């Protein structure tokens, strides 16, 4: 047993309001520079949708992640043989148009144009060429199901959903969606690291953050192909790849990463997981249907005596162990079994887990006659002839699981490699917590019914209360349990941290200059 500690994350999708505050926080700190304008280390996409870059989930196109052949895993689009043979031209590299061409507007024209008959306009100009462009795509072009025929219907997860089911999904009154915020997963079996021919990408031993050394990256651009989540980006200006650094300078100072700190919906949790590094390859090589289980298996119990002993032998600090015991991630992922990795079938063993959304699934729309109601409330107000209401009342929820608006298959294709039972189990628990809490707070549900749902979901009232507390009422310190970084032992205070890391984000010590 080789115990290591990893900073892991949970995103609670029911709480995400799709405000993109996280993306902006990240952009402001890290990627607001030339060559990185198009990068969104943190992005929030609307599901169903094609995402960013377009159709990133379709590995027929991008050949990301690991495949399995004869019981062994191999990189689909990179690796020692494929990567070196394709080094002169990488056939599976997404290009700028798959993201979008970054642009700005010539605002100065509004002020400086000479007097004339026409209003001056601020024309869009490309941030690459500086020439005027016709904007074809921009960040979050498909936000909130905009352009559904082009985007949502081309979602790669629709592959297994029959045309009839799709029609039902896209009926205007029934249409449902949810947001999927994504950052680098800081995987345990990172495809980006494995694909880098120069060895510029590495996982930090102390906390598992995956970084790209900017001094060693040589623009072989294999990581961009290899990362199935497309979270390694190529900076066209510097000729280096860059990726999310999990705000390690903030983490080392005990602060939450910017995206998590600023999250309006407070959907984000961060904490330590202990795992067994000896079994990474074994876990990543499991059969598709066992992948989630095998990934959960190598996550170790931080209260187990043997684990604690092995961890100490491995040099893991007591403060890190305490953080692991208080970790909200351990609770959501292992103890409660509520959070799942995104696309486990990519086999990178992601360390960012999602609690699948229940709200768009359980809510239904009802046709009601609301004229009398409206009359009563505001007799003078305009009457909307919209008589559909979004109904999220908890009664009889459970019976509706089979008639939900989002096909179970769709969610399963995102979070469980297609295994619907896994999703059902999580949903049962989430639903049970809601019904239990409704009994406690509103009291219109009988004890018998609430207890039944709880036992059917395999949890008890105590657990449900804990889940409820950590979901709805957590304080900052409960959402982010950040272990001390012990940097005092790593780097002397005198040193410039950028020297040691050589990773993105600290600004460049030598001028970004092409050629001479």
């Amino acid at each position, binding site marked *: 047993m080789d115990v290591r500690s990893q900073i892991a994350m949970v995103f609670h999708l029911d709480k995400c309001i799709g405000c993109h505050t996280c993306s902006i926080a990240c952009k402001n700190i890290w990627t607001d520079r030339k060559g990185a304008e198009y990068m969104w280390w943190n992005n929030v996409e609307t599901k169903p949708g094609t995402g960013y870059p377009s159709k990133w989930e379709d590995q027929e196109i991008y050949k990301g992640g690991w495949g399995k052949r004869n019981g062994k895993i191999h990189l689909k689009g990179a690796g020692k043989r494929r990567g070196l043979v394709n080094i002169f*031209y990488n056939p599976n*590299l997404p290009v700028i148009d798959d993201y979008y061409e970054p642009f700005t507007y010539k605002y100065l024209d509004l002020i400086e144009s000479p007097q004339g008959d026409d209003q001056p306009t601020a024309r869009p100009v490309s941030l*690459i060429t500086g020439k005027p462009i016709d904007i074809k795509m921009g960040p979050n072009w498909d936000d909130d199901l905009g352009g559904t025929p082009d985007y949502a219907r081309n979602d790669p997860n629709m592959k297994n959903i029959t045309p009839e089911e799709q029609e039902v999904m896209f009926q205007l009154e029934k249409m449902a969606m949810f947001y999927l915020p994504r950052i680098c997963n800081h995987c345990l079996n990172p495809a980006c690291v494995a694909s880098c*021919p120069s060895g510029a990408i590495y996982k930090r*031993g102390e906390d598992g953050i995956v970084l790209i050394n900017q001094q060693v990256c040589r*623009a072989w651009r294999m990581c961009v192909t290899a990362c199935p989540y497309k979270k390694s980006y190529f900076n066209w200006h510097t000729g280096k790849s860059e990726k999310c650094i999990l705000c390690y300078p903030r983490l080392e100072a005990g602060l939450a990463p910017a995206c998590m700190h600023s999250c309006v919906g407070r959907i984000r949790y961060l904490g330590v997981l202990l795992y067994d590094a000896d079994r990474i390859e074994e876990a990543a090589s499991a059969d598709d249907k066992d992948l989630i289980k095998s990934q959960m298996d190598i996550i170790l119990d931080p209260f187990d005596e043997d684990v604690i002993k092995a961890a100490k032998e491995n040099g893991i600090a007591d403060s890190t162990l305490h953080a692991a015991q208080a970790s909200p991630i351990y609770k959501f992922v292992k103890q409660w079994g509520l959070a799942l990795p995104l696309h486990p079938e990519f086999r990178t063993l992601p360390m960012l887990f999602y609690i699948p959304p229940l709200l768009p699934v359980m809510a239904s729309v009802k046709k009601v006659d609301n004229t009398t109601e409206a009359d009563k409330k505001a007799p003078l107000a305009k009457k909307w002839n919209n008589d559909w209401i979004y109904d999220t009342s908890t009664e009889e929820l459970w019976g509706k699981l089979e008639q939900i608006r989002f096909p179970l298959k769709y969610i399963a294709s995102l979070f469980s490699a297609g295994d619907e039972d896994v999703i059902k189990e999580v949903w049962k628990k989430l639903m049970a917590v809601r019904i239990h809490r409704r009994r406690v707070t509103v009291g219109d549900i009988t004890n018998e019914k609430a207890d039944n749902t709880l036992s059917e979901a395999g949890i008890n009232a105590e657990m449900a209360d804990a889940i409820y507390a950590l979901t709805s009422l957590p304080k900052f310190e409960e959402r982010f349990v950040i272990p001390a970084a012990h940097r005092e*032992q790593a*780097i002397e205070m005198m040193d410039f941290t950028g020297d040691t890391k050589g990773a993105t984000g600290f600004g460049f010590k030598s001028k970004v200059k*092409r*050629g001479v």
Partner: protein
Amino acid sequence: MAYLDNFILIALPYVALTVFLIGSIYKYTHRKFQFSSLSSEFLEGRRLFYGSVPFHWGILVVFCGHLTALLIPRGILAWNSQPVRLMVLEITGFIFGISMLVGLINLIIRRYTTPRLRPVTNAMDLVIYILLFLQTFAGLWIAYSFRWGSSWFATLLTPYLYSIFTLHPDTTAVALLPWPVKAHIAGAYLIIGILPFSRLVHLLVLPLNYLWRPYQQVIWNWDKKKVRNKKTPWSLQRPENT
């Protein structure tokens, strides 16, 4: 003529090799960030295929050919002792030379006709394109008109190059070669000289160790066990800052 010969065959190589050595070492130690192939595939990913692939495979084979003649001239001569084998060698080299030239032309056209590539193109790129083009063209011309290059490279050029490396330059034989050959030699020195200052640096950092390194890489800031061991002296607990 003798002055020019001496310049091209004696002065130039020493200047070029010195600049190359000092330049590369300085760049690697002080400007490591600039070691990059500066790939532009991300901005233009379709036409690159028709340039980069034929060019790189061509130059790879042609370069290995030159290197073999330099390292094992006797091997080449022995191989060439049979006309069929000589033809095979020469024709292979020529085909790859053509592929290099075609690739290069495609690359040049692509670079100067794609608006998106303008911001990532600089003067040095143009210098390299011109040098490489002339060099490739001269090489093909020589291979075609002054036969058989593989043999006389091994008998004439290899001893000359050794004389340069051993600091006893001897140009008697090489000075008699026709001027296109001398131009090709001069071109080679020029390219070597500017290599550290151009995007060509990427060939100094070919990722060969990828072949034997394990796929996954973990880097620790400090030796996790040693640093927490109470017996480790304080001076050693401090991690190296490299």
